[in-house]
């Protein structure tokens, strides 16, 4: 479960103060597929980053699986992200110099798992997203949909409890977008993975369990 209580995020420069999130309180139960919608700049990605422990709130509390995020020290945060969280980004963020299989193995490298075991786990993850026959391809040789499937395989290879997806279908056409959405829905349904997805697409959002809308950093629905 992800719990946010009175979370505020303020970006401050020398001259300007911008409130990205304003007193957000949100509870995401285990196994839920939640989508977050809102116009550009409303704080969707900031909220996702805070849930993913890759950004810190200015005030408020965040707890994941019953443990307050502020209790973790830097190394423990990294370990927690590695073991419990998976990320999917709009622009895939694959390492173009590495073949698909090595990209998928990335989270496992930081778990000190043997090379053989890593390969097996990466192959299984690629099989789950239907890309087992593309293991040795490089990202540059794949279509947008295939790249995002590799990104999903990378996110699930470590069998995380929570997947945080930032506009996973944003760079894809509707056919490919639907394919990706199907994979995410299956993951949620079959493995019980908690998924929080930021999206601009109302149709995609309606397929999830719950929809949260943000406007100017505040929760409006």
């Amino acid at each position, binding site marked *: 479960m992800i719990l946010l209580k009175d979370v505020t995020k303020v970006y401050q420069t020398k001259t300007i103060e911008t409130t990205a999130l304003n007193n957000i309180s949100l509870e995401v139960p285990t196994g839920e597929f939640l989508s977050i919608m809102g116009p550009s700049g409303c704080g969707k990605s*900031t909220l996702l*980053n805070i849930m*993913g422990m*890759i*950004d810190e709130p200015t005030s408020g509390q965040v707890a994941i699986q019953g443990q307050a995020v502020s209790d973790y020290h*830097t*190394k423990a945060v*990294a*370990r927690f*992200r*590695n*073991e419990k969280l998976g*990320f999917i*980004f709009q*622009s*895939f*963020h*694959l*390492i*173009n*110099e*590495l073949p698909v299989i*090595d990209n998928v*193995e*990335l*989270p496992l*490298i*930081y*778990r*000190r798992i043997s*090379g053989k075991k890593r390969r097996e786990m990466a192959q299984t993850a690629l099989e789950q997203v239907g890309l087992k026959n593309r293991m040795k391809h490089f990202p540059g040789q794949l279509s947008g949909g295939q790249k995002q499937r590799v990104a999903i395989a*990378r996110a699930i290879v470590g069998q995380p409890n929570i997947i945080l997806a930032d506009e996973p279908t944003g760079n894809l056409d509707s056919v490919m977008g639907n394919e990706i959405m199907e994979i995410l829905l299956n993951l949620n349904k079959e493995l019980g993975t908690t998924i929080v997805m930021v999206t601009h697409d109302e149709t995609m959002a309606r397929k999830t369990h719950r929809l949260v809308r943000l406007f100017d950093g505040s929760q409006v629905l």
Partner: protein
Amino acid sequence: MFSNYLKLAIKVLGRRTFFTVISLFGISFTLMILILLSAYMDAELGSHQPLSQKDDMIFLNRLMMTNEVIDTSYQIDTVMLDGVEVYDSTEVLDKNRNSVSISSLGYYFCDNYLRDVAGADIYSFYSPGFSYDIFVNGKKLSFDVVYSDADFWNIYDYQFSSGRPYRQQEVDNQSQVVVLTEKAAQDYFGGMDAAMGEFIEIDGKQFEVIGLVKRPSNSKGFLSGQAFMPLTTLKPVYLDDDENFQGPFEAVFLAGSSTGMKDIEQSILQKSKQIALPDPENYNNLYLITSDFFGRYANSIFPNSDNDPEKSKRTFILIGGGLLLLFILLPTLNLINLNVSRIMERSAEIGVRKAFGAHSGSILTQLLFENIVLTFLGGAIGFVLALIVLHLVNDSNILGDTILRVNYRVFGYSLLICLAFGIISGLLPAYRMSKIHIANAIKQTNV
């Protein structure tokens, strides 16, 4: 993990060829110079023939005689005494040298005072300062000649390619025998095989060639010579002058252990206080200037007015270290700059890695590892370039007798240099990147 880093490091090098070429050029050129420099320093200061035993040697090559007098002067000041200002004088005693004579040692001095130095297993007296022009087939050759006793060969381990060194009996009998370097034999006789048993005219006398030595791997100014002859074949004026402390000789003592070296220096210091000077009216103090090999070497490059080898060592380390630092610093700064640009391009990738669980230490290790791979690649190119330059330098005799070699020690230095260079030039950019804020980093689109 490291195989993944290595794979990526190689791929990253191919990503921006221009950056890579510039980086590799800078690294390989710098490392080539550093490798050549370490080969040179190894040749000069390493334990190579004829100085394999250099760490057990104490050199005595200078004596200084001074006339020290006590000058009395008075310093006048005013003081207040019972409220009245009065003049007060202080007697100041200054030790002044009003004459100084520095030279190398006379044979008389060596023979009479230096044969019983405590701590020395073996000692040798020799004179390296003679140079003769020799004409062969209308061609002038300049030979530097070293006159020595027989133990010279037991201390300085020249490598004989044929023949043998002269023995003490031959020294005692003033035998006109000579040991030549291979190059001298080649120059004079046109071949090394033709030289053995033949005669060479030096200083108007005929000397039989009894041995040939290989070219030493270093050009110690105080040991350089093309011909070596018994010291008894020197003109009598250098050997027979009664009570002459000064002359063309120097002495070397070989200690059995490191404590032996201290004993030798202590014993020589004691002697300098006890020896009665031949002309006490003009000189009333004797200083014998001893040094270890490094001090002797540094003093031959950076002599100083005090004839203090320790001062020369400090100058050598200061100037040499300063130049080295400057030489390393400039390309390192340049490389840091290049690395910053190269690594900053990868901020999104680093952000993703951190998002998936890499902590700052892993990122630092990865980026340092990549930089070390790049440096070792540059080091390998630099090493090959250094081998080529080294070959050219040795062939051209540009460094005199010094032969530059890449032995295991130089190779080890090269690896260390590569490692240090890689770490120094990569640490700052890697550290900066390891601390990057993930949310900001993943906003970049290039991975």
